[in-house]
């Protein structure tokens, strides 16, 4: 019996891409209607969707292989938005090639693992349902972003990943720090997203095209070449590098990464250890034809990677808590991956990402075991275990040591620099606007016009409400 390969392909794609969307609706809709789902339902459905999706992906990989594995398999949905006068079509486009298939299998696999882990770990947590809802959003986002066949589709996934990540950092919303840090992550993401959106719009404007397959000509990834004038490619490339640097916490955006460890352990593991953090470098790989076109962009990526490695490995050395240490260890590797991309390598960084994601997930998931591990180690070695072997290079003076240490402890002052040169001027402008507006409204109404001025910043009543 023969099955129409096209039909089979479309069916499998539906399972891969549609499953997470269905999951998101199934977990997100009932709470809106006031229904409370059982833990078993949320966790079980997540596992089922992921298992089915994973198998379907393997099936697609089989089709890809049998089709000769030279050209990418492309799935095109029907048009959602059509603006004929500017030749804009928005539709779901997915691409299956040497880049996306391995990474999609990785993200499906790790998400499945995390779903199984979290089903137990989050048991009885009041936010259980919220966690799985955000998790489904993440799954849909990462899946869409990885498989995206056009820049618009990629942006859709990219945004979902960003939103779910920031909300999961702020998962423990009753405390101040997680919300604060979630907001910080969100702000950095927004900044990066703005760059992404500009880049995408520019790409469309200049080429009238957002599809990777058509942009990159006949050859499949990574041999594709792009035919853009160098200046235009440089501009688009720069914007895309900003976007990638924000998502992958490359310099100068690295400061948010340790702050993102506020959420529950499994979400930290999957996002910042494994998947989110690699999405930026994945974007660089996806847009590698741009880098190939303009060598300066490759140099820039290489430079960013180098500085990131430098700062992250230095900061990693002085961290005294396990999650921050792992965060900076992740960052070191992401920096290395960026260096590899900058050097023009393509398969190695992909391999590196996959290997790194797997290992780091394991390490983060079992981070709470640290004390027991140390005890076992001490018992095995029969002595007190210290990580401090030959801490300082011989050539470093005492003052230099202190300076280097402080540089590490302050994480390369990246956050300070961002605050001082980006955030504060930004705030200053808007505060000025606010003052101006207040003056106007006071003038117009002839009296203090802000009702919120009557409310104290803090309320004694809170004590009674506790």
């Amino acid at each position: 019996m023969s099955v129409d390969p096209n039909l089979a392909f479309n069916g499998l794609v539906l399972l891969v891409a549609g499953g997470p969307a269905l999951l998101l609706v199934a977990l997100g809709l009932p709470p809106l209607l006031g229904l409370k789902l059982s833990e078993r339902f949320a966790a079980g459905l997540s596992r089922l969707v992921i298992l089915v999706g994973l198998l379907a992906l393997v099936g697609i990989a089989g089709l890809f292989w049998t089709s000769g594995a030279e050209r990418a398999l492309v799935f095109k949905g029907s048009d959602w938005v059509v603006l004929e006068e500017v030749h804009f079509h928005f539709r779901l486009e997915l691409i299956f090639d040497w880049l996306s298939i391995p990474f999609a299998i990785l993200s499906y696999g790790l998400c499945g693992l995390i779903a199984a882990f979290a089903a137990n770990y989050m048991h009885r947590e009041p936010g259980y349902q919220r966690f799985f809802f955000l998790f489904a959003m993440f799954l849909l986002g990462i899946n869409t972003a990885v498989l995206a066949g056009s820049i618009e589709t990629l942006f859709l996934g990219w945004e979902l990943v960003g939103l779910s990540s920031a909300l999961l950092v702020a998962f423990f919303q009753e405390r101040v720090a997680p919300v604060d840090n979630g907001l910080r992550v969100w702000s950095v993401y927004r900044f990066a997203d703005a760059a992404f959106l500009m880049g995408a719009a520019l790409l469309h404007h200049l080429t009238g095209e957002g599809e990777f397959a058509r942009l990159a000509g006949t050859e499949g990834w990574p041999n594709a070449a792009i035919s853009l004038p160098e200046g235009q490619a440089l501009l688009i490339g720069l914007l895309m590098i900003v976007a990638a640097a924000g998502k992958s916490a490359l310099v100068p955006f690295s400061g948010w990464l340790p702050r993102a460890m506020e959420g529950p352990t499994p979400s930290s593991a999957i996002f910042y250890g494994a998947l989110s953090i690699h999405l930026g470098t994945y974007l660089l790989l996806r847009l590698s034809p741009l880098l190939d076109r303009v060598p300066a962009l490759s140099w820039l990526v290489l430079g960013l990677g180098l500085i990131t490695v430098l700062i992250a490995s230095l900061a990693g050395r002085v961290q005294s808590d396990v999650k921050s240490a792992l965060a900076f260890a992740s960052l070191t590797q992401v920096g290395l991956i960026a260096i590899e991309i900058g050097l023009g390598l393509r398969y190695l960084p992909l391999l590196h990402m996959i290997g790194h994601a797997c290992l780091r997930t394991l390490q983060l998931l079992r981070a709470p075991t640290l004390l027991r591990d140390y005890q076992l180690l001490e018992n095995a070695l029969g002595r007190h275990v210290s990580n401090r072997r030959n801490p300082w290079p011989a050539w470093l003076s005492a003052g230099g040591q202190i300076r280097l240490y402080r540089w590490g402890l302050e994480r390369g002052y990246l956050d300070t620099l961002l605050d001082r040169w980006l955030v504060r001027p930004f705030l200053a402008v808007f505060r000025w606007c606010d003052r101006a507006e207040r003056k106007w409204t006071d003038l117009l109404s002839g009296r203090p016009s802000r009702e919120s001025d009557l409310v104290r910043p803090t309320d004694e009543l809170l004590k009674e409400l506790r």
Partner: protein
Amino acid sequence: MQTETETCPVSSPDVANRLEQAIAHAAHLLPAQGPINVFVHHNTLHAFEEQGFHEAVASAATTFGCHPYLPEEDYRAELRAGRLTEKQIDEALLRETESGEELLAGGLTSRLRLRRAMLLSPQHVAPAAELNWLIAETDALRKYPVGQERAQVLEVLEATKRWALRSFPEERGNSAQASEPFARVAAWLRGTAPGGLLDWSESDWESATLRVLWGLCRQGVSGLPPRAVEFEGVRHRDFLYRWSGSDIDRPVNELLIRFCAAYVDQGFSQWELPGRTRGFYRCFLGLYARPGMSPGAVFDGLAGELQQLLDAGTTATAATLESLERLGVSEPEWDEYVSQTLLALRGWAGMLNQLEQRGDRVPLGVPPRSLAEYLAVRLVVERVVLRNVLAEQGQAGLALTELRRAAARSYSRNPNPSADELRRAFALFQLARANGWTPEQLFAIGPSAWAELVRELEAFDSIARRKIFQLAFEAAYREQVLGAYARHSQTVGLRQVAGRAAASELPSFQIVCCIDDREESFRRNLEEIDPACETFGAAGFFAVPIYYRGAGDAHFVPLCPIIMKPQHYVVERVSEGALEQHGRRKKARELLGQQAHAWHTRSRSFVGGMAMAVLGPLATLPLVARVLFPRLTAGMRRAAGEIVTPPKETELTLERQGGPPGKEPEQLGFTVNEMADAVERLLRDIGLTRNFAPIVVVCGHGSSSLNNPHESAYNCGACGGGRGGPNARAVSAMANDPRIRALLEKRGLRIPADTWFVGAFHNTCDDSVRFVDTERIPNEARPALEHVLSVVEVARPRNAHERSRRFVSAELSLSANKALRHVETRAEDLSQTRPEYNHATNAVCTVGRRARTRGLFLDRRSFLVSYDPDQDDAEQSILARILGAVIPVCGGINLEYYFSRVDVAGYGCGSKLPHNVTSLIGVMDGAASDLRTGLSAQMVEIHDPVRLLFVIETRPEHFLGIMQRNPTIRRLCGNGWVQVATLSPDSDEIQLLRGETFEPFCGPLEELPRVNQSVEWYRGWRDNLGFAQVLAGFQPEVKLSSGPSVGRG
């Protein structure tokens, strides 16, 4: 900077001493939890024990900003569930209310009635905006609440109707001569519905009544003196925060957390903090004084400030004094100011204090005076940040000495007085609704009555209400316990209690377990399976306090309660025959250890990253296996681990020839006399001095779980967070030694030659029981041992089954064997945050002969301490020494659970899910938070916070005598930190301690439900269960009719 008017106080030693005092006072308040890998339970509010419990929790609520009791809503839920009744609330209210019958508001109500209404009908407290919304947009002024009794509502409506028709006839409606209040009420009435009053329907009247009530309440409270706004705050930070909403603690803490973590780090980070050994102050100065980038805009100027201190050679004390002066903190304020400053980052400050005090407990101690120097640093940093924040808010000119005054002045100008009135009116309105007060009644009372009502309302505040609830909640369970004990005593009959000790028939075996509440079900199950056995409870170090080092361990660990310091060292040595194997495995272990360590650190470096590209995917295999099949994987890991674990053929170095005890090989162990003392102490404490069975098992306990930084907290509390197996093994070996038996016989304690002691270890997480040294048992004793093993083999799954009913993730329909597998999986599951429930639900501590409680289902809620009053001397010296240890230890465990449960975020360590192990010493939430102390939400979620009820089998006068002699017992019992009741040794009379005198307990004695086996009683239930008699465990003396069928609640 303002000019300094006084001479610099730095030179005066008196001032420095005074500062030391202030710091010592503050240090006392800091959390007393040490490094987390040796978790010791203790009273969270130990520093307040000199006060009575209720005053203490209230003042601690102010000091720490934590809850003293559960939220009111939780108690009301208990009330709805019937676990707390109105009767107990009334009793507690009566006991606690002064002049409760006094009439208020011109006879409208009495204080007692008012308070009762406030307790029983929930008061909705909300911000003004929400109240406005409630009034305008909801049915608040149209319908009485759904839950309210309708008959009462109808009466009020009826009364309103009569009053309205009588006093507000239509024709007088708008006439000029009506007084103003009358006119107002008339207007409220008319505004309700169109048409004449006579045409109104019931719902119109309901609405009218509520509108008039609301109007009267608003009218009544208007113009009353405003509630004094107490400015709660000590530090500049508090004032600035209330004033402007910006919290300087956030940046300051963030900087200091990083630094503190590096400072106390026990060797996790690869680079050591430079200059750490020079002390906190010098080290901080050295790091941050140098020119370099500031750690953030709010810290601008910090480096300069620090450099000045460095250049002037200012000491930490002088720096603190200078800061206090520049902040304008006068000497009388120091205690409070210093305390609150240190409490701002209490976990880390507490850890500095602990490491300073008990440097012996960690590999890397901290230099002395670290806490005082931390204070110096913190104050300097706060000063700098305060100045920067003020400048940012356009207040750069404001001197720090003036900041608090300025903020308080501005704050005391209430920006919105009507909000306060609205709140008061709504509170009264709710009360009027709930009490069924009619508009007529409220219309009649004058301004002074309104003021009185408001005063009463505000005096009975949230804490006062919750105190009553808490007292009632405790009384409810106490009555259940004491009633059940009295009733059970009647059923068992005293002849049997005494008779059991003198029985001609020997028990089939005896087992001594820890007093731990988790062993209650284990013992009960053993007794049900083999009714001929006897069980005892003794503190789980079994009178052998030691430093112990196992064959595969690197260090000695103390195995005894934290209040003791062991004198003796014991080492586990591999037997001669297995030495070669041991050496081989040790080498393999070291090799593997080195590789593992290298992997741990290198996988985080960038060179290791390359290897990762290849090896990473391989890591998924074990990861998937461990997450999906934890139990199977654990089995495989164990099998593989066999290659490196030390051989099983080992022995303890118990005997020392003489000389002082110590760590050196010839100093290890005890002398024969010391061993005899230990064995005698244990046996006399539990009253096991005759009728020895052929086998006496001594069973220590501990717990093992994965991915759990708090693992040590689940271990034996009497072993100071260690595992009690070695103690059990040691005391058994001692008791088997013929020389020791000979010595004991001389002291009048004869252990027959055919009795054999066996050590064992119970893992309370996976319910495994391991026996040790069984190969040394003589052949004659073997059949008896086989019997013990078979009984324990049946008891394990049953115990696991009973425990599993509490785990929501375990089906209630599990079979016993499946339950055992379930708990085994829990212990090996990386994703399991509740490997077991530890001491959760503990509520009682029973001290006395087991026969008094044997056969009573205690639901794993009672510590069980064996003590035989018949064998005690006239001074009650055995009881005194038992209680001297048991009351602080069990009370400490219970109180830690209490406080972590009532405020898991404040007193406890919050949820486990975001925990992050830091500095190898504790946990933080996320990447930068205060060090979290106390117990986690996952540990205490099923716990009912009640103070531990000691039921002691003794006479009240004996207990009072002991209480007088022992200051600790007196403090804890007299101040109400634990509850005490005595059970008479020769009757079922129970007396309850109130203050320092006993009152007889005369609760209702209800027939207890009877079941044949425990499982019949608990099957299908998740929540706490009431008491029942389990017939398999004892023989009732009183002839039983068929058991009554009583609900389980």
